[in-house]
């Protein structure tokens, strides 16, 4: 059972990490985050279901289009819910993205349907036995893909022009402007990438759970907790915190029962932030007087 708990914890944890990376990406580039990130998780899964199952298109195509849809959502969120407020130096982007999430969740509810549906996957039909525990192959695939994507993002950031542009804006937006980089467009790209990551997570976890209009909400909140816990400015910290969070959640559920999971995990978060106010791997901003 411990194996199952660990695998399950690592799997969910890597997904939290992936969604939290989305918070990280927009935060470092623009100082803002999309609080409707959970809705992007939902959208990824719902689009995947609608295209791949309802319309019966080939799954790879459905997945690609679903991810494209998520990226588009990111662009729309940035343009309508973030930029108008940031340009007026208002913090209301925070509430605007929350409201945007409510609108999107309900829009999905009325188009996709009210019932949870199941996204079939060959990797989640027949369990295999590993160390005395039955697991779906997908449960093993998820942490591998999750960490793989996180690693790929790192590689993209380090190796491609787009990645370097994002990093440049994150490190020094003014200097980036002087390089001829359009910071606005870069921020929009970061939002697209952020929603895309959430979409990947949504598509990966959908076959294990179910596809519904509200599947992403709790994931979004937990991922935000993960992003903060890891130190939202540190990509490594965020992924690490995701794994820790997933494992802690699974272990508390297995030992104390799921009724105590949220109390214990959220108490630990408050405690951790009291001890490390900038998150596990976050760096304190220099207090310049």
């Amino acid at each position, binding site marked *: 059972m411990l194996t199952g708990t660990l695998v399950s914890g690592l799997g969910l944890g890597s997904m939290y990490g992936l969604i939290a990376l989305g918070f990280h990406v927009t935060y470092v580039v623009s100082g803002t985050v999309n609080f409707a990130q959970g809705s992007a998780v939902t959208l990824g899964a719902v689009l995947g279901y609608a295209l791949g199952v309802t319309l019966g298109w080939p799954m790879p195509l459905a997945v690609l289009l679903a991810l494209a849809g998520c990226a588009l959502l990111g662009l729309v969120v940035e343009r309508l819910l973030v930029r108008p407020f940031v340009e007026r130096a208002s913090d209301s982007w925070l509430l605007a993205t929350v409201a945007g999430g409510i609108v999107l969740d309900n829009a999905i509810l009325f188009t996709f349907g009210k019932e949870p549906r199941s996204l079939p996957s060959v990797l989640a039909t027949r369990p295999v036995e590993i160390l005395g525990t039955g697991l779906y192959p997908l449960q093993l695939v998820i942490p591998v893909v999750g960490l793989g994507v996180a690693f790929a993002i790192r590689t993209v950031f380090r190796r491609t022009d787009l990645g370097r542009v994002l990093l440049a804006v994150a490190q020094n937006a003014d200097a*980036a402007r002087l390089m*001829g980089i359009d910071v606005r467009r870069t921020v929009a790209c970061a939002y697209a990438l952020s929603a895309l990551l959430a979409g990947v997570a949504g598509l990966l976890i959908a076959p294990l759970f179910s596809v519904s209009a509200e599947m992403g909400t709790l994931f979004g909140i937990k991922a935000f907790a993960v992003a903060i816990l890891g130190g939202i400015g540190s990509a490594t910290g965020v992924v690490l915190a995701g794994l820790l969070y997933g494992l802690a959640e699974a272990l508390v559920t297995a030992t104390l029962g799921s009724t105590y999971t949220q109390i214990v995990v959220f108490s630990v978060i408050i405690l951790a932030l009291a001890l490390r*106010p900038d998150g596990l791997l976050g760096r304190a901003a220099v207090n310049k007087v």
Partner: protein
Amino acid sequence: MLRSPLAMPLAIAGLTLAGLALVMVSSGYAHFVIALVALTAIAGTGLNVLLGLTGLMSFGHAGFYAIGAYASAILTLAGVSFWLALPAAALIGAGIGGLLAIPAMRVKGPYLAMVTIAFGFIVEHGLIEGGALTGGQNGLVVTGGPTLFGHAFLERELALLSVLGAGGALYGFHRLALSRLGRAMRAVRDADVAAASLGFDPVRVKTLAFAISAALTALAGAVLPPLMLFIAPSSFPFSQSILFVLSVVVGGAGTVLGPLVGALVTVLLPELLAGLAEYRLLFFGLATLVVLWLVPSGLIGTLARLLPKPAPEPPRPSPDVTRLLYRRGGEPLVIEGIGIAFGGIRAAEGVSVTAAPGAVTSLIGPNGAGKTTVLNMVSGFYRPDAGAIRLAGADLAGAPAHAIARAGIARTYQTTRLFGSLSVLDNVVLALDPGRLWRWPRAGDARDAAALLDFAGYEGRLDRPAGELPHVDRRLVEIARALAGRPRVLLLDEPAAGLTRADTDALGGLLRRIAGCGIAVVLVEHDMPLVMSVSDHVLVMDAGRPIAAGTPAAVRTDPAVLRAYLGGADTPARPRETPWRGPADAVLFAQGLTAGYGAAPVLDALALEVRPGETVALLGANGAGKSTAMRSLAGLLRPVTGTILLDDVAIAALPAHRIARLGLALVPEGRQVFPELTVIENMRLGAHGRAEALDPAEIEALLDRFPRLRERAGSRAGLLSGGEQQMLAIARGLMAKPRILLLDEPSLGLAPAMINALYAVVAELRDQGVTILIVDQMAALALTVADRGYVLEQGRVVTAGSAAELAADKALEAAYLGAA
């Protein structure tokens, strides 16, 4: 009338009466809705204390609402009177709020949001697991409502009670906002550093704000059980916390009536949409977005701007302030060998100076010399690694800022840190008794504060929000505020920056008058005429160490000081062999260029031109507007007025990235390399904006020119030394193959050997035909490589000429070190 002090209490009383009347004439469900609006307004007012006054975000206020509701329900079910349960619930809320403040104080921004979110979840799930006490998921059914004098409290009475409570809460908020504590909260929000240096412990102020906020919200929650007859954990979900924030923001954070308006919207809108059944949330989300888009500063905040402007103030008397300030036989501030290092770099080392009472002691030195670092150590923002700071027998080294303020050391800041939302008068009144939160307003407070403002030379309105003041007035108000605590020592950090000559001269007079009151004045300043005219004693620093000390006259002839300021003449950089001759069509042309930050223009109709292949120097003292000119030309500072042409293309309205793509490369002040990217990656980014594809040979060629960069090609730019970073910044600029290269303070903070190497490179680039506009505070150095130069003073070109003419001009030295 609308702005008179009685307007708000009358408005609150009127609204309360209207609410009561509405309850009397309506029935049934309307009572319930009115009560809910009133309770939401109370809870929102609680959140407003935190969000509006103290600037702290909470996404966990549903937790306090729940705590109040459950405390009241559990107590009344146990037989305690509802009228005792109400204050008990508020007390429990305040206690838990104070406890939450402990972790919440340590975190900021999104981290604070997360702590409060976690708190909300813990409360919700704690209630679910609360067993028989909380009734678990099923919640508690409350039967038998409260009674008063035998009269049963049903919906109508509860609605009346809630409306009265809301009126009381709004009035209480109004009083709090005007009280010393409320002003301290706003001071902590506007400028926590400055509040600490007035002796207000930000932790204590924020903890109190949390406790008051939680108590009010819990109090509102305590009325819920008899009203709803049923409470359950699901009554207090995360979304309720968001609704509270929404109601405060929609109404207008920080305004008295904002939470009431917000409560009307967040409670009534869902009621109105009830008929939409399942489409309700969709429309609620959309309506919220529309409100946010239309009125970003909240409904009340937007309406308040429409109020008529206040009437002119009566003339005010100017009583004598020496009574307030004069200190006889004060003790000196003695600084002994203090030093501090940041990440291995010694920002200051072995600094010793004695500031005598009644005298002006100045700390001067080029940029990056460590002057402000010394001030920050003395005022308690940095903890020195070594040395002592003695005042009146106590060693203050390492004490927190608010403790140092209470010991009698006041300060001002390089960029003023006024409490922008408080009036000019309140800024000063708040400082009258350093650090005291509970103090009855005294009749003389306003008079004393006005006298201090008058003494400082402030002539504007006293009721104006400090955030709206022009630059010079900010300086004066900040000085008056620093004096209000009757300090023994006054530290001033570049008070003359951005002031006109006339204002600076007036400031000099003020500093002497302050010293005349027996106060030890410590001045950090770049404006040499000011320093030379007011100082009794001058300490000169360079690269973190003292290099000279003495009277102004002694210091200004010290060769070490001259070298530190103007740069040595022993540079290998040579002037052009043959004078520059080239086409007369300017690459870069500016005329009537006016720009600034906020109210104060820094550039005043600047005109300059740079022709192809020419190297032009832009000179002037600190604060003359050199860097502002560079930022305006490169598009980092917008909007600007006037004309800027780059190759005959008008760029004054273009953003920086478009200008960069047109071929203007600015190597900014402070290098600004991308610290986490490697040297090569930084260079490749330099070519990002150009149309031409990148040829690896170009990078090779540049690495040949900068051999030190080749050695470090793969390492992160942040690990490079200052000189290497400057080389990299120039190389990055050259990667753009620019039409013109702008160099802003390239020698800043570099060791002399490095500066020489750097200028050799600049001379080389010039000889290869690169068009260069260079700003350097080492004027002599800049003139060795330049063909021509402009001298700036207060944002205008005062002298222009060939490099040779300018180098021979004594006026230039005067601009830097002050006239002899």
